């Protein structure tokens, strides 16, 4: 009798041991949520994707250094010649300086960390396809793939070779799984192929979501411009193709966007005055990042009170840049004097005079419609088309149309001028220089070489990744 009781008890416990307990041991602490629990439903995938956008909006990445900060300084957009200026060493491309190196390492580390977040989301999404409501699987996966391509491409633009010289060289790793196996540094062309493969898949998935929403029932879908979207993915494809010299693809992709340019109407003069001036050109943004703390970031860099950080340029420099124009929106509305100096302060993100809390604030543009026109202009073989694309933008910037008899090199010069005027505080100009392998950058006395154009990989990367 007794022995049987013992037997029963032991047996019942063993059953629990075999089956139930494994489940029982799966606990879900609230401080740290296991991936299994997070990716249990659609909301979890949304939250993980939101987390990725928040990471993009960190000051080490697009909320500061990769756009208005270090990247623009590398393009010599500001006067940082004072030796006590906190960006002084950046302006000298002194990548061995600890402060410079620290921020460059941050580009790399935070970008790849964000990529790891994307990868883990993508690794979980296939087995959970059935938890999504209509269209969300495609939307979330498409956005994630698009962002993976976006981040890798920006890493490539920063740390990869000068495209004119090194597309056969080893570049950096393309990471598409989250695991602890070291990934090889890919040949640049292979790297770009991987980017485009992700991007094509993203475009395919996102093609169901072509509308540009604001304020629909689902907050997740309400801000198309601030998520990687179908149009942004096409524009990105054009950007990548042009970067490696594939003009055909570049033009083709640019045209996809241009054909639907009405979704992204150019900003009008009256949008830039009044109580809510739209200086970030929100309606033109194919993709922009939302940064709730943008005012603080702006005020720490672009105000007189910013002290040793202040990023400005001289009145003379700006006047020359804008060719003395007094009508160019970008000169008239995006520069101010802050106090009685001859320095001009860029005010794309300045919000002190905005009286009604407008939508256009707290956003940093990453891809705008104007760039798509520039890409099309550069990629097109037809001179008249080139001029026409440029004139579309010029007309919407308050400056006169170009003559239709310009030569190809004159058009290239005009495109270059547009890049310099258009992308202040957006970090694109340095990559233009690198793509064109420009030898001389206004504001830097020496010739540019790979030494300056190719940012150094972090020491930890070099030490632990010798593939």
């Amino acid at each position, binding site marked *: 009798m007794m022995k049987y009781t013992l037997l029963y008890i032991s047996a019942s*416990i063993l059953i629990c041991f075999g089956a139930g307990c494994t489940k029982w041991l799966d606990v879900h602490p609230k401080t740290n949520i296991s991936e299994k629990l997070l990716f249990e439903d659609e909301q979890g995938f*949304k939250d993980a994707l939101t987390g990725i956008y928040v990471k993009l909006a960190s000051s080490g990445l697009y909320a500061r250094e990769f756009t208005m900060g270090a990247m623009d300084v590398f393009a010599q957009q500001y006067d940082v010649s004072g030796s006590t200026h906190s960006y002084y060493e950046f302006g000298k491309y002194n990548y061995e300086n600890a402060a410079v190196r620290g921020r460059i390492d941050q580009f790399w*580390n935070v970008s790849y960390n964000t990529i*790891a*977040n994307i990868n883990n989301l993508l690794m979980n999404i296939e087995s959970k396809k059935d938890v999504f409501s209509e269209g969300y699987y495609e939307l979330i996966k498409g956005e994630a793939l698009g962002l993976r391509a976006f981040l890798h491409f920006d890493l490539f633009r920063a740390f990869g070779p000068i495209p004119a010289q090194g597309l056969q060289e080893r570049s950096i790793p393309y990471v598409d799984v989250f695991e*602890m196996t070291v*990934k090889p540094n890919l040949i640049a062309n292979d790297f770009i192929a991987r980017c485009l493969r992700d991007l094509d898949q993203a475009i395919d998935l996102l093609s169901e979501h072509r509308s540009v929403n604001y304020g629909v029932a689902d907050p997740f879908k309400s801000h198309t411009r601030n998520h990687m979207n179908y149009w942004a993915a096409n524009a990105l494809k054009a950007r990548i193709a042009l970067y490696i010299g594939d003009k055909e693809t570049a033009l083709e992709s640019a045209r996809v966007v241009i054909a639907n340019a009405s979704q992204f109407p150019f900003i009008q003069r009256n949008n830039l005055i009044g109580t809510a001036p739209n200086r970030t050109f929100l309606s033109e943004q194919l993709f922009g990042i939302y940064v709730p703390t943008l005012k603080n970031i702006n005020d720490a860099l672009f105000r007189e009170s910013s002290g040793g950080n202040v990023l400005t340029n001289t009145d003379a420099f700006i006047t020359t840049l804008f060719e003395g124009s007094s009508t160019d929106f970008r000169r008239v509305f995006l520069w101010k004097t802050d106090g009685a100096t001859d320095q001009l302060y860029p005010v794309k993100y300045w919000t002190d005079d905005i009286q009604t809390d407008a939508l256009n604030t707290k956003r940093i543009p990453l891809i705008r419609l104007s760039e798509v026109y520039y890409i099309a202009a550069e990629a097109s073989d037809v001179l008249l088309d080139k001029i026409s694309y440029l004139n579309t933008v010029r007309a919407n910037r308050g400056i006169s149309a170009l003559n239709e008899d310009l030569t190809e090199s004159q058009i290239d010069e005009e495109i270059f001028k547009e890049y310099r005027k258009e992308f202040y505080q957006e970090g694109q100009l340095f990559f233009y220089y690198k793509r064109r392998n420009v030898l001389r950058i206004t504001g830097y006395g020496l010739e540019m070489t790979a030494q300056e154009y190719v940012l150094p990989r972090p020491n930890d990367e070099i030490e632990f990744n010798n593939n």
Partner: protein
Amino acid sequence: MDKLLTKLYYPILLTMLIFAVTPAVVSGQTNTISIDEKGITLNEFLTKIRQQTGYDFVFSSTKLDFNQRISPKFTKANIDAVLAQYFNPNTGVVFMIDQKTIVLMDEENAAMKTIEGRVMHAQTKQPIRGASITSELKKVNTKSGAEGEFQIVVPEYERYLTITYVGMATEKVSLGSNRPIYVEMQEKMEEIEDVVVTGLFSRPTENFTGAATTVSGDQLRNVNAMSLFDALKVFDPAVRIPDNLEFGSDPNKLPDISLRGTNNFPVQGQGGATNQSGADFMAAYQYNPSMPLFMLDGFEVSLQKVYDLDINRIEKITILKDAVATSAYGSRAANGVIVVETKQPQAGRLNVSFTSTLQVTAPDLTSYNLLNAKDKLELERISGLYRTNRPENQFILDQRYSNRMAAVASGVDTYWLSQPLQTGIGTKQSVYVEGGDNHIRYGASAGYTNNKGVMKQSDRETFEGGMVLSYRKNDFILRNQLNISSNTADNSPYGSFGDYSRLNPYWNPFDANGNVVKVLETLTNFGVGGLSTISNPLYNANIGTVNQSKYTGISNNTFLEWRIDGGYRITGKLGLTKQNDEGNVFLPADHTAFSNITDYNSEAYATRGSYDRSNSSFFNYDASLVGDYSKTFGKSLIFATLGFAVAEQQSKSTAISVIGFPNNRLDEIFYGNAYQNGSRPRGHNNISRRFSSFANLNYSYDQRYLFDLALNVDGSTQFGELNRYAPFGAVGLGWNIHEEDFMAPLQRYVNRFKIRGGVGTTGSQQLPPYMAITTYEYNTAQDYLGAYGATMLGYGNSNLQWQETLKYNLGTDLSLLSDRFILRIDAYYEMTNNLLLDVNTPPSLGVSSYKENMGKLSNKGIEGNLNAFIFKPGQSNLTWSVFVNAIHNKNEIKEISNALKKMNEANDQNDQQRPQQRYIEGESVNAIWAVRSAGIDPSTGQELFYTRDGQLTYVWNAADKVIVGDGIPKVSGNLGTNLAYRGFQFGAYFSYQLGARQYNQTLVDYVENADLAMNVDERVFLDRWTQPGDKTFFKGLTDVEGNTVTNATYATSRFMQKNNFLNFTSISLGYILPEKWTDKWKLKNTRLTLQGNNILQLSTIQVERGLSYPFARNFTFTLNTSF
């Protein structure tokens, strides 16, 4: 009396005894005596007995002194008991009763008689070999043979034999006749007296092959009446609690405790989450990964719980060290286990015991040697503090010097060290009530402890209440144990002691009226001008500064036991624990921390004052079902246990920081006017679960050959998903050589000679859960268009395993000359594999490091304990014993990860004014690395170093560092002695260590690198280089050119010193009041004890100890009594 006559009596008397006396003794009713006289003669006493009982006396003794005065006091006492009081082997005169005749005779004249008999198992009817047979009075001892037979020669006056055997109830048999005695022994599992309690099951010490030390509560209280851990370390050298040089005797700092060597690398940087509940035993490992497991009455508890436990409630403590003893704990066992049992109520009439302790705590400042005001000022002058080559500044300096000079001249010489200190008077009161019968027993305890620190207003106050109820019906026992405790820990508002030790003695903390000043001195700045001030930390104490933490905890343990015939027993246990903690740190606006905010118009001015509040809670349940089985088969004895347990821990916390308390009186957190800028609520919410199953088998054959087997399978949420279940096991073998036949001739000399050895695996699971599982964290600091996102915390290595420690142990127990010398030696080797370490990765993988099982660390050592009873208890009024114990441990790093190697490099970039950790394979974790010094060059006053390859150089280079010593001693241990004479008890205990080396940081920080603007060690004057040719130990204050030396001294072998010490840990003097004194108050077991703790330290190194909180000497006075 005629000797011849008495001799003739014996055969006759003895035969009669069988028929007549035995029934009388057994019934015990008829022959009772009541007597209450003071100072009567022996003659009168015997007469009274004769009158009351009608017995006659026959005297054959020459030692009897009939005029001896005695004060007998008996009420209805049995005649045997009355006579035994005065006539026994100790008094030299013994008695025998023959029918109605009492024979008194000299002990040495007693004839011997031979008793034969057999010992059998009552149930199996098998003979029992090795049962111990002892005579009642003379303690003659023998053991039963293979067939259970024995033969014992005892004096004729012996009346009883006691038969004991492991696993059996003790039998007491009366010596009726010369007929052989036949004893049947009953199995009695739960009342084995000499057992090792592992917290999961109990095993007879005799049969156990593991390494364990058992210390009784009384032994502990003899060493220290207040602090459990200070007492515990005396009894086992393996218990390592290094002095906390930083926090000294702060009653609110829990000790860092480890057993044998450390099986982990020290925690790098700040470990763990903030504000964990003190009851959270999982969290504590993040601060001390080498901490042993604590079991209180069968349930795992935190260090804090044991630390705050009333020492008077402790029945005994068992320290389990090797794999055989701990493997049943599986993944929790690697650091050893400390098993604490509290007192359980005894049957009997209501018994109330009461303990009252008074503790006087006095600061021990002997390690501090600071300059007085006059010398300090002189030092400043000669070291050039008042000289400058800029005339405009020289004026400021001259004024500063003359102001200070004036202060010194007026007699200011503040002894800052004593300012924040007090002599603390602490107290501890415990009451324990118990009683009941065989069915219902109850116990209730209440305790109050106020542990005063030596910093003013620092104390630790604990209230404890507990209740035990047990009910037994037939084969069932239900026991419930409820405990509630409440604790308040106040840290001194005076701040850190270190703030005081560096203040200059020429500063006066008081103004002319005796009020505390806020500013000690106002200094005029050079150049830009303006003033800077030096704050008086004393000021903070009187403005309402609060630094307090408190908790309330409740635990309830329920046991249900079912005994089944045939040696089975099933026990179900359920333990519930809940604790709520709160922490408060309030600094009013007036606090010197805000004294740099002086602009009345600034925004910051209104934000002065801060309040940090944290709340945490912990809940835990632990349920288990254990089956025990014990059986004798022929010569085999088996104890088996099979158990299952499930446990869950939930831990939560929140913390907030509030600022802006402009008025000192507004001292509640809700008076604050803002949250701290950029701060948000912090906290955590964790849950973890564990499933354990364990089995243990203890087998002995013929009491000679012993075998232990332990198995455990643990499942834990802490492990990686791919390794959810961890198996552990251990095997132990033992040989009781003293039981062998060939040892029979030595039986008189060797009471016990056991050799035992064991090998097994144990684990530790102290890792945050996200290391094994990829986890996400919601980031509430930044939204994305109204949505909050979740981001990954790191790479969860799902292959992650528990750390596994392979342990070998070989030991012997030797007991000689009737247990006069007891020696225990254990040698061990422990190898921790799969050590959890960071592995660096290229950041392109998304993380810079992750956790991997890849380190290896080994510890080997030997420990021993020798007890010698110079006068054994029971032989005379005097007992005297001495003991000495020792441990030697060697630690070696076998394998480390790339991350630790990288940390070595990073450490070479750190502050080099103290030796930095460096982990090298093949070396010890505790190795101290510094550059070898060739001393001070007499010609230049600069230090000369040896490079790695032996070249002399003036240049200090981190690459030239070599191992210059090890912080862990070659030998450490304790020694002590106990003496008892009649009611007096005396104990003295010392601890020692030999062969350790320490970097004398005091000589570096407060002598050579001293900041001369603040107070320094008085050795700053001694042996300094002053001019070429001086052969000195210290660098000069000035160099050859007479300029102040400013380059700091980096880690150099010059400051490595031997750290051998002898600590007078404890001295105690106790007196047990004779019952005749206390009877009138109806008290019994009354005892007074005086104790001194940490009285003296003799050390080869003179270094400041207790930097943030001083060390203390304690004196306690304890009164125990019961009624």
